[in-house]
C-alpha cells in the first residue's frame, strides 16, 4: 500500500467511525463534535482527490459555520431547561408512527443510494472528469467557470431556495409582541436585545 492508500483508509475510517458514533452519544454536544470530526475526515479525502478548494470549503461551510450553529442551538437548549430533565431531553419521545415513517424514509434513501451508485457508470459518467471543459488552471478557476456557465441556473435557483428558507425561519421565529402605546418608550431598546 502506498502512502495515499494508507491515508485514504485512515481518513475514511475516521469519517465512518465518527459518523456512526454520532448517533450513539447520549450527550448532544458530543454528537456535534463527532460530526465535526467526520467532516474533517471527509475534507482530508477531498485533499487526496486533489481538490483542495472543495476540502477547505467543506471545513469552512460545514465544520465551521453550520456546526457552530448546531452547537449554539444545543447549548441554548441546555440553558433553557433544567438539569433534572436531562435524560428525557436526550432521548426524544418515541412514537410508533414516527419510527415507522423514519424506517420507510431510511429504506428509500438506501434504495436511492444503491441506484445512484450502480448507475453512475451508465448515466454519462457523472463521476468521471467532465469533458469539454477548459484545461484546468487550478480547481478554483474550473469550479467558478462551470458554476457560472453550465450550472448557472441550478446555482441561482439554490440561492433563491436558501433565501426562501431564511425568510421562512424569520417568519416562524418572530413572536407577535403587542405594540407599545404610541410615544411610550419610542426607542424600544430593551425588547430587541438578545437574551444573553
Amino acid at each position: 500500500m502506498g502512502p495515499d492508500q494508507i491515508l485514504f483508509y485512515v481518513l475514511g475510517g475516521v469519517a465512518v467511525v465518527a459518523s456512526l458514533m454520532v448517533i450513539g452519544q447520549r450527550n448532544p454536544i458530543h454528537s456535534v463534535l463527532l460530526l465535526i470530526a467526520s467532516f474533517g475526515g471527509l475534507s482530508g479525502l477531498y485533499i487526496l482527490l486533489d481538490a483542495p478548494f472543495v476540502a477547505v470549503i467543506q471545513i469552512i461551510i460545514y465544520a465551521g459555520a453550520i456546526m457552530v450553529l448546531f452547537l449554539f442551538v444545543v447549548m441554548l437548549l441546555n440553558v433553557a431547561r433544567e438539569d433534572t430533565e436531562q435524560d428525557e431531553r436526550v432521548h426524544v419521545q418515541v412514537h410508533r408512527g414516527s419510527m415507522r415513517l423514519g424506517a420507510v424514509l431510511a429504506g428509500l434513501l438506501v434504495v436511492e443510494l444503491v441506484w445512484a451508485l450502480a448507475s453512475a457508470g451508465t448515466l454519462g459518467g457523472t463521476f468521471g472528469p467532465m469533458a469539454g471543459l477548459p484545461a484546468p488552471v487550478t480547481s478554483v478557476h474550473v469550479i467558478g467557470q462551470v458554476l457560472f456557465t453550465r450550472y448557472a441556473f441550478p446555482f441561482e435557483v439554490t440561492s433563491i431556495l436558501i433565501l426562501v428558507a431564511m425568510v421562512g425561519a424569520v417568519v416562524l421565529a418572530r413572536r407577535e409582541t403587542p405594540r407599545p402605546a404610541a410615544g411610550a418608550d419610542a426607542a424600544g431598546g430593551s425588547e430587541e436585545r438578545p437574551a444573553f
Partner: protein
Amino acid sequence: MTPILIAQIVLLLFVFFMLLNSAAIMVYVERKVAAMLQQRLGPYLVGPRGLLQPFADVLKLMFKEDLRPTAADAFLFSLAPIISVTAAFAAFAVVPFGAETTFFGLLSHPIPLQVADVNVAVLVIFAIASMGVYGIVLAGWSSNSKYSLLGGLRSSAQMISYELSYGLALAAVLLIGNSLSLTHVVNGQAGYWFHVIPRWYVFVQPVGFAIFMIAGIAETNRAPFDFPEAEQELVAGYHTEYSSMRFAMFFMAEYINMVTVSAVAVDLFLGGWHGPFLPASLGWIWFLVKVGALLFFYVWMRWTLPRYRYDQLMAFGWKILLPIAALNLLATAAGVIHFGA
C-alpha cells in the same frame, strides 16, 4: 534527507519558536504600552526594564494548581485549550513572511519563507479561524459555569457575525490580487505608482482594510470587542474556570491570533515584505516592522476605546459593517471588470 527538506523542517521549528516568543513579547509590550498610556511604569523589576517579566509569569503559571470543576466535562474541558492553541499555531503555517531565499547560498535552489505554500492559502486561514471558535465555545460549555457558558455563547455569536464581514473584505482583495495564494497576492503589490506611492492594496482598498482590521479585532476577541471575557459582566468569560497552564494556553492563543491576523493584513493590504531601501533578501525585516506596527495599533485600541454594549456590537456587525463590506465587494468587482485586474 535532502538539504531542502532539512531547511523546511528548520524553518518550521523556527516559525513555531518565534510564534511562542511573540506571545511572550506581546504580553510585555501590552503591559508596557498600557502603562505608558496610563502614566504608570509597568513591569520594571524582573530583569532590565522588566524584560524578563513574561518568563516570570510563565513560571508562575506553571507552578499554579491546575483546577477543574467537579461538574465539568473532563474530556472537553482539557480539549478546549488545546483546540484554541493548535488553531492559533496552524493558521500561521500558510502565511508567507519573506521572498524566496537560498539562505545566503546554502541551498541549491530557493525556497519560499513560508511553512506551507498552499494555493488556497487565504481560505485555509479562514477555515482554521473558524475551527478556533470551537476552543472558546467548548471551554464555555464544558466548564459548567454560568459565566463561562455566557462567554462561550457570546463568542460564538460574535465570531459568526464578524466572520462574514471579514470574509467579504478578504474577497475584495482577492479579486484585485486575482489569486487565492498569499504569495501571489503579495507579489502583485511590488513596485510603485508614479515612483512614489507603493502599490499596496491598502490604497486601492481603504474601506476593505478598515473592515478587515475591525472584523479582525472582533475575531480575536480584543477590546473594544472583548465580550467573551467582559470582566465587569462575566468575571472572566469562557476561561473563568481555567487556571495554571490551561489558562496560559488560551492567553497564548489570543496573542498568537493577533500576530496571525496582523501578518495576514500585512500580506493582503500592506505589501508584505516589499518596501524601499532593503534588498529583496532582507524583505522579512519590512514584514516584521509592518506586523509590529499593526500589533501596536491593536494594543493602542485596547487601551483607548471602552467596550461596546452587546446589542451595539451585534447591530454594528450586521447593520453597518456587513452592508459596507458587501457594497465594497460589489464596487471592487465592478472596478475590476471596468479597468481590468
